[in-house]
């Protein structure tokens, strides 16, 4: 039983270490900003998830008693990683893309953060500071 737990923990640690390294290497290596967004937000998050699950199994098998509080960090990271990726992509679009670069939304409103001010538009605008 102990040997099985050791094998599982070691395998999880090695796999997640490789994932974390690949994620950060992709951040350095990939060619342009939007492809660079993929590596850390997916591979590195999976790597940390693996480390946390390995820690969970370790403290369950050797620490005494079931330990699941690491799962809290795992779930938190898995929820927040897509939000961070979405925010970063949106900020990049806001800073680097013009409305002509983007496909049409098919709605009256344009892209969020990209809409131009239409003449006679009564929708609330940002107050001038």
């Amino acid at each position, binding site marked *: 039983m102990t040997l099985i737990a050791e094998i599982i923990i070691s395998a999880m640690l090695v796999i997640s270490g490789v994932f974390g390294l690949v994620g950060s290497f992709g*951040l350095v290596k990939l060619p342009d900003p939007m492809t660079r967004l993929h590596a850390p937000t997916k591979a590195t998050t999976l790597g940390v998830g693996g480390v946390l699950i390995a820690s969970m199994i370790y403290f369950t098998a050797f620490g005494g008693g079931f330990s699941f509080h690491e799962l809290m960090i795992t779930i*938190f990271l898995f929820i927040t990683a897509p*939000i961070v990726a979405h925010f970063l992509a949106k900020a990049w679009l806001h800073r680097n893309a013009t409305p002509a670069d983007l496909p049409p939304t098919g709605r009256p409103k344009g892209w969020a953060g990209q809409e131009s001010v239409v003449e006679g538009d009564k929708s609330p605008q940002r107050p001038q500071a």
Partner: protein
Amino acid sequence: MIAYALYFAFACFGLALLFNLWHLARAPGVNDRVLALDTMVINAIALLILYGVAEGTAVYFEASMLFAMVGFVSTVAYCKFMLRGDIIE
């Protein structure tokens, strides 16, 4: 066996942190720097958890939880600043 796997994981995440630092120093834009900072936070969480396993204590759990929360909030604040030029309007 766990000790060697831990050494390997420490090496991987330490190297990953160095890659992030390298990218943070010479990234071509603000967006990339924020992304590198966010990845650094995630790698630091992994290192803290690994250290907790190596020491056999659960003390570092609170520290990594704080890192996760503060890292997320700071990244969102940076993105909000890039989007609007202001954080709380």
